[in-house]
């Protein structure tokens, strides 16, 4: 919980209407590259889990995958549907509870990298997973923070995964659920957050990181078939665009194959590829 994605979540993550499996594969493959070997990783269900497991199967065999429900060093052999899914249990080294994972481990400063999705993001990487519309008259009630606010507050690094829809990349959030870089340099320090804030935003159009001077979002790479202009046309804030924008490398065949091995029933990847 907390890593559940955007309001139309089932498009990206649901099991019901899974048409764009190749985009999911792409997102998971890119996200996996941001996980480093030996790290303590907060993996929820869905894309974060798939990305973390893919990393573990490829370049980062020694990551410690933690689910906020209480599972530590989890090695699921079937993809779980819930952070509390028993599928996380078997093969884990400890199965405890929330005070352990969100309190001792996460707030204790021991999580290297956490994943979050969001319905809206602003140019400092602040996230909304709570309401669309005003707080007094919401148009849509989203899942809420779950552990998201805790993860954004206390994980050393934050990887944000979102489907790319212009309305999500906003100048001002309808509601700020999770802290990114707040109002820019010095903001997080003012509140003594345990964690370092967002490092990268991965969409199905591009990767974005944060300009170290201003802590504002900056284009990092565009996916094959897209240009920097495509991205600029699809955000509502002032995106920093450096001169040279590389193209994001494609997932390898091995990565695709491993992902389908991890999700044989196509729970997350969809069944179209079978």
């Amino acid at each position, binding site marked *: *919980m907390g890593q559940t994605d955007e309001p139309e979540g089932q498009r990206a993550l649901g099991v*019901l209407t899974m048409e764009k499996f190749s985009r999911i594969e792409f997102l998971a493959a890119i996200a996996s590259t941001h996980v480093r070997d030996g790290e303590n990783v907060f993996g929820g269900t869905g894309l974060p889990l798939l990305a973390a497991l893919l990393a573990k199967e490829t370049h980062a065999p020694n990551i410690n995958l933690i689910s906020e429900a209480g599972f530590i060093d989890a090695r699921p052999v079937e993809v779980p549907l819930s952070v509390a899914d028993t599928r996380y249990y078997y093969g884990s080294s400890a199965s405890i509870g929330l005070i352990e994972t969100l309190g001792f481990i996460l707030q204790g400063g021991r999580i290297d990298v956490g994943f979050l999705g969001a319905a809206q993001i602003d140019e400092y990487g602040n996230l909304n997973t709570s309401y669309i519309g005003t707080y007094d008259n919401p148009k849509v009630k989203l899942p809420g923070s779950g552990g998201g606010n805790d993860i954004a507050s206390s994980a050393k690094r934050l990887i944000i995964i979102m489907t790319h829809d212009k309305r999500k990349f906003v100048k001002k959030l309808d509601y700020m659920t999770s*802290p990114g870089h707040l109002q820019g340099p010095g903001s997080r320090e003012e509140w003594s957050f345990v964690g370092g804030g967002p490092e990268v935003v991965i969409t199905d159009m591009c990767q974005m990181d944060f300009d170290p001077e201003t802590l504002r979002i900056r284009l990092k790479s565009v996916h094959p078939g897209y240009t920097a202009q495509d991205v600029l046309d699809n955000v509502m804030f002032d995106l920093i665009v450096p001169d040279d924008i590389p193209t994001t490398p494609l997932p390898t065949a091995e990565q695709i194959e491993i992902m389908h091995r991890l999700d044989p029933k196509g729970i997350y990847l969809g069944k179209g590829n079978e």
Partner: protein
Amino acid sequence: MTEPEIEDKRITLAEAAKEVPDGSTLFWGGFGYQRPPIAFSAELARQKKRNLNICTCGSEVDIEIMAGSGVASRFEIAFAAIEALGLSYNMRRRVVEKKIQVEDYSNLAMAMRFLGGALNVPFMPIRSLMATDLERLSRFRDDKKLKVIDCPFTGKKITLVPSLQPDFSIVHVQRIDKSGNAQIDGIVGEDIEGSRCGKKLIVLAEEVIDEKEIRHRPDQTKIPAMYVDHVVITPFGSHPMQVHGYYDYDLEHLMMFHKLTQTEDGWQEYFEHYIMGVEDHFAYLDKVGWDRLMSLRAREPWGY
């Protein structure tokens, strides 16, 4: 030695739900797909309870039942969705209709509020919520939602979340003896703190075990009987969700539930058929079908 009497705290699900007056505040156990007290939410709906305030980190089908049926009008929670399946539509509709007010916290904040309640102290410090709308906006707790203070030791900012001591705590566990000593396998989520923070505690369990079994390995007891007011034996009490070591989630039923709740009509159809249309929990299980239920039973060594 004078043998102590062993109090038998078992009552029926209907009797347990009757104990809960309209307007009560409830700690609600289980986490995600694991051990939610879904049978209790259905019984609360059948008894047409109203104006409950449900406090939990997050829950899924049970929250949907209580939101959709009008049992609960307030929630103090961090999360409502069916996770991988998507949004919780009943909650979404009721919030937009303003029939439900949600006071938003994070999971850690709620877990710490239960811990503070269990410890009988008025607040707990946490390092989340700060600088966001979770800190700035409140639906109904107003200035009792939280406080950000300057730490008297470090001078730095820290959030204090108010402890919760709800009228009732409702949890669902694997095994219990008739006096209320309960064992939980797998993760505990927030149920250790949650079971201690309520003024009364009702424990649902998949099965009853003998007291001897409890006293043979007391370090396996997760909830001692001294906290427990009522014991309710409810096999498959978390269906269509899962109970570690006992049964897996019923994905087909869950997807059907989720799909139906996309519309008010669909939800009403489910509500009439599976909740109001059955006399009690066992009639619900009959309707689901025992062949289906038996097929969900957990297999070794997986626990699902």
